């Protein structure tokens, strides 16, 4: 073995020992998660803790004539019953929403959706609390309700929000109707209209991204404990954004922020459900402040599905204009957004429709216009980003369905049409017609790899044969090929356009190296299962050469973690991951000075080598990070502060734009409407890959949720505003049996502005997956003249399509 090989081998061994970026490090959190040893909010048991439960409205819209709590209060074990009358003097019967609206904590004069919170019973145990909710007598006068958002702004529509009836200017400008929330517009309307007026070919379709719910396995919950002596509140809860919750609690309770300790322990999934603030959190806090003992609130499954934060409910009139040859010239979209009874969307403050304006997708569309009208209805509020950045699933669904409709109209292959219109690699950074600057991408390469791998041409040939056989009556099965080429926008975000309640959407990392060379690092984000404890450690390991196993990652305690905006919208890696790299580099810079002092050379004479600084040209003269850490506490250079730690608050210069090419092959039994996914191939480009195994896990999970949304998951209401199917009997959460097999793949186009080039991946599969499934279903029926088929594509709805097309004997 020559010297160079020995050096290379030694370096490879040291690199491997770090378990840094790029390796499939096993998830450290799984040791406790897979053994049932996680510690969740509901695991908390504090001395004297009481339990709260809600009295909820059976009506979708009704006036409250009276509330009589006397029977409930008389039940032994009941300590208190809170109603709006108790909260009003504290100014807490309403709370602010992230979208600039207010939301009832406990209904005062009216209830506006079924299961709305009307009273909060506090008792010595969960069972008594639940029993007592049945003893609160509420007299209602039912009112006509609005379920269909298209009826919200009719002249004779019942006025839902009497509390803001006279406020004809909302947080986002003028309101056209008492049930109107906002109108948001972007793009060049005149130029767009002009293109449409003269285009060869146009398509126009109402694309509905129906109402559903993120449904994490752990529901929303909190425990509030107010220390009357110190005047301090500790609040444990299922919070995706603990610091923001602390600020909100301070603002609405009047407690000084330093006297509020917010702790998010292990969280059993979030998917957007745990970003907002809920009545249960507020009531547990008020209960604890009033009673001076801890109060726990735990939502049950039906409450979770029917009250805290729905997703989607976007009704998107989508138009494309193109040449005969298939060059897209313009896009025009109008969205009617059903926000439910309160505008509790979890979007950055200036973005009432989230980043819906990413709807031009992966295509070089010269001009576009988007208008969004938000309206109130008698449904639960929310509009959260369900495993996606703000409204990005909706946007991608619109464009990816629209290009398919255009291809169909043109008689062109849907993949070919996409390729023809892709933004080219050399056009990046690319300025989109609706205002975004895409950081990087190589769409053609990704698409080609995907098409070659899946065998696209052969699949189309097989489909042609199958269609003929179907027409001849030889088979009752239809084959659909779904494509989706998505571009996401994640990592909110730059202070110039992103804030939450006025707080810029930076994120943070604080890293401390201990004298023995082990590390604790804390971030402003909060994992809900994404594996932050594993991946942040890998970033640090690579940056500063300390093994990931010697690095502990801690999140969720606002007393110890630096302020951050939390985890949602795939922002952890793009923002806090960047902060982590930058903080690590600060440490490394200081370490270099210490090493130079130790080795008695000039800093510039040192070079970095995996886990050490060594003297250039003298590889045997080096100091490892571990040695440097000791020196930092033991014998730092003169005039240098001892210690080795750094903090970084990272404000991203731009969003990141992950993308991917997805293909789905589906076989549909026309007689039952049952659709079977034969293949699903997902190529993701999320820039630099920190942990390929975790990426794959994220893709599997996101695709599974996409499959659910497209193929059956929904929150439906009947005409009286009764919420239907809000339990796991009906709400479609696929098990391993229903879930298709996933084939994953990747290309790597790093983000040019991110310190390690990473873009975020947790949500791509969901965003790209939903339209891919829907396109497969639509593609199966397209040759029969079905037109656009709305989601969800559950069996009975597909059977109805067959009925309409006279496919059944």
């Amino acid at each position, binding site marked *: 073995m020559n010297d160079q090989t020995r050096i290379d081998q030694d370096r490879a061994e040291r690199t491997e020992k770090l378990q840094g970026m790029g390796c499939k490090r096993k998830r450290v959190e799984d040791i406790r998660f897979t053994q049932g040893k996680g510690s969740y909010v509901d695991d908390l048991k504090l001395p004297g803790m009481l339990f709260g439960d809600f009295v909820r409205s059976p009506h979708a819209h009704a006036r409250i004539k009276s509330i009589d709590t006397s029977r409930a209060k008389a039940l032994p074990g009941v300590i208190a019953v809170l109603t709006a009358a108790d909260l009003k003097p504290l100014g807490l019967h309403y709370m602010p929403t992230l979208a600039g609206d207010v939301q009832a904590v406990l209904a005062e004069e009216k209830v506006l959706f079924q299961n709305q919170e009307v009273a909060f019973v506090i008792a010595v145990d969960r069972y008594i609390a639940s029993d007592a909710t049945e003893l609160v007598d509420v007299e209602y006068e039912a009112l006509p309700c609005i379920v269909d958002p298209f009826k919200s702004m009719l002249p004779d529509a019942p006025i839902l929000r009497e509390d803001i009836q006279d406020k004809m200017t909302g947080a986002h400008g003028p309101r056209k109707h008492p049930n109107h929330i906002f109108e948001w517009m972007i793009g060049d309307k005149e130029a767009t209209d002009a293109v449409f007026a003269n285009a060869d070919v146009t398509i126009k379709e109402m694309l509905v991204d129906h109402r559903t719910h993120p449904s994490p396995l752990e529901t929303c919950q909190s425990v509030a404990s107010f220390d009357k002596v110190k005047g301090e509140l500790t609040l444990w809860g299922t919070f995706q954004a603990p610091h923001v919750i602390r600020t909100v609690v301070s603002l609405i309770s009047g407690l000084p922020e330093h006297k509020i300790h917010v702790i998010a322990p292990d969280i059993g999934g979030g998917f957007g459900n745990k970003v907002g603030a809920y009545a249960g959190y507020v009531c547990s806090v008020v209960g604890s402040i009033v009673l001076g003992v801890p109060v726990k609130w735990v939502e049950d*499954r039906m409450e979770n599905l029917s009250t805290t934060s729905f997703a989607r409910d976007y009704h998107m009139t989508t138009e494309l204009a193109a040449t005969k040859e298939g060059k897209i010239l313009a896009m025009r979209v109008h969205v009617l957004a059903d926000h439910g009874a309160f505008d509790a969307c979890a979007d950055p403050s200036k973005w009432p429709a989230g980043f819906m304006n990413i709807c031009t997708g992966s295509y070089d569309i010269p001009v576009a216009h988007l208008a969004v009208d938000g309206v109130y209805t008698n449904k639960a509020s929310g509009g959260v980003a369900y495993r996606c950045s703000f409204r990005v699933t909706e946007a991608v669904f619109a464009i990816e369905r629209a290009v398919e409709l255009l291809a169909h109209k043109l008689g062109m292959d849907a993949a070919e049409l996409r390729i023809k219109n892709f933004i080219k690699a050399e056009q990046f950074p690319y300025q989109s017609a609706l205002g975004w600057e895409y950081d990087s991408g190589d769409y053609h390469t990704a698409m080609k790899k995907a098409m070659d791998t899946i065998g696209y041409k052969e699949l189309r040939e097989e489909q042609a044969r199958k269609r003929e056989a179907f027409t001849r009556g030889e088979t009752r099965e239809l084959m659909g090929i779904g494509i989706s080429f998505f571009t996401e926008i994640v990592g909110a975000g730059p202070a110039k356009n992103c804030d939450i309640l006025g707080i810029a959407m930076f994120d943070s990392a604080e890293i401390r190296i201990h004298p023995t060379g082990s590390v604790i690092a804390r971030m402003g984000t909060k994992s809900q299962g994404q594996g932050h404890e594993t991946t942040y450690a890998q970033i640090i390991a690579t940056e500063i050469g300390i093994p990931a196993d010697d690095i502990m990652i801690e999140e969720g305690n606002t007393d110890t973690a630096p302020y951050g905006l939390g985890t949602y919208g795939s922002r952890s890696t793009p923002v806090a991951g960047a902060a982590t790299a930058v903080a690590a580099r600060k440490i490394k810079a200081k370490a270099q000075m210490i090493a130079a002092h130790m080795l008695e050379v000039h800093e510039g004479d040192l070079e970095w080598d995996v886990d050490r600084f060594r003297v250039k040209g003298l590889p045997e003269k080096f100091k490892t990070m571990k040695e440097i850490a000791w020196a930092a506490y033991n014998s730092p250079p003169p005039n240098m502060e001892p210690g080795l730690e750094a903090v970084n608050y990272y404000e991203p210069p731009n969003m990141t734009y992950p993308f991917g090419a997805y293909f789905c092959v589906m076989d549909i039994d026309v*007689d039952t409407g049952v659709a079977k996914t034969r293949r699903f191939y997902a190529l993701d480009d999320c820039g630099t890959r920190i942990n390929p195994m975790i990426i794959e896990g994220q893709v599997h999970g996101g695709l599974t949720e996409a499959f659910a949304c497209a193929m059956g998951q929904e929150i439906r209401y009947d005409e009286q505003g009764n919420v239907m*199917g809000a339990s796991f*009997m009906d709400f479609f959460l696929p098990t391993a049996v229903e879930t298709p097999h996933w084939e994953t793949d990747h290309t790597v186009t790093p983000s040019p502005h991110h310190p390690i080039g990473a873009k975020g991946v947790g949500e791509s599969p969901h965003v790209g997956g939903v339209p891919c499934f829907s396109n497969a279903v639509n593609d199966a029926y397209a040759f029969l003249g079905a037109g656009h088929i709305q989601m969800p594509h559950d*069996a*009975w709805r597909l059977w109805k399509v067959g009925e309409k097309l006279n496919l059944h004997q």
Partner: protein
Amino acid sequence: MIPGAFDYHRPATIEDAVTLLASLGEEASILAGGHSLIPLMKTRLASPDHLVDLSGIGNLKGITVAGGDIVIGAMTTQFELIASEDLARHIPIIAETSRLIADPQIRYKGTFGGNVANGDPGNDMPALMMALGATYRVHGPDGGRDVAAREFYHGAYYTALEHGEILTSVRIPVPPAGHGYAYEKLKRKVGDYATAAAAVVITMAGGTCTSASIGLTNVSETPLWASEASALLVGTRLDKPSVDAALAAAEAITNPASDMRGPAEYRTKMAGIMLRRALERARSRTEA
């Protein structure tokens, strides 16, 4: 999802259970595997003051061959139906159906007796028991009596059981050797009740159907025995016109609710499709 308060009783004999139920009155419920009753209690659609658990009664479990019949104890679990060699040999459609009930965890706890006594049209066993011509053995304060499965179901959660009566066993005549059978169930996912399901037991001789019995699950307030549809098949060669006629007769007796599984018209049509597929499969299994 929090049940109301209740007292729990665990008698050791059928007689004790019957006495207990008589003394506790209408507010007492029998508890078997709990996988239908407890969900109802958690949503407070049922709030019994007392639960009388049958799991302490030794002789309610087991599968025995008795002459030309098989007798299954009420507390036999759904898993045990799948595991039984006697059932596999004599009435394999029972295991086939059991495998389509809920999921493995539920089948380990859920009982055969609970499934047939529950009275929910979504349960899979009742229509099968009707198709097989089973007889239920029931014990009450006045002693024992037999009720035919085909006479047992009166409405949703409303059966021939009087309050205080316990279903102790089910006697099923073994179908002739070489019979064909199939249970076809359309459901949205594992653990779901049927959108529609059909149980078919037939015998064939020389290509002609010599007997047929059809049960339908979850397409009416009660499980259905499709007697007319069954009769239409006997004497035919199960050719398309005969099967079509049977399907039409079967669909005609359905009266499903519209729910999240689909509108009524869909569920009726699916009963027909399931029946067609069950007939095809049953026929392919006949040894004649």
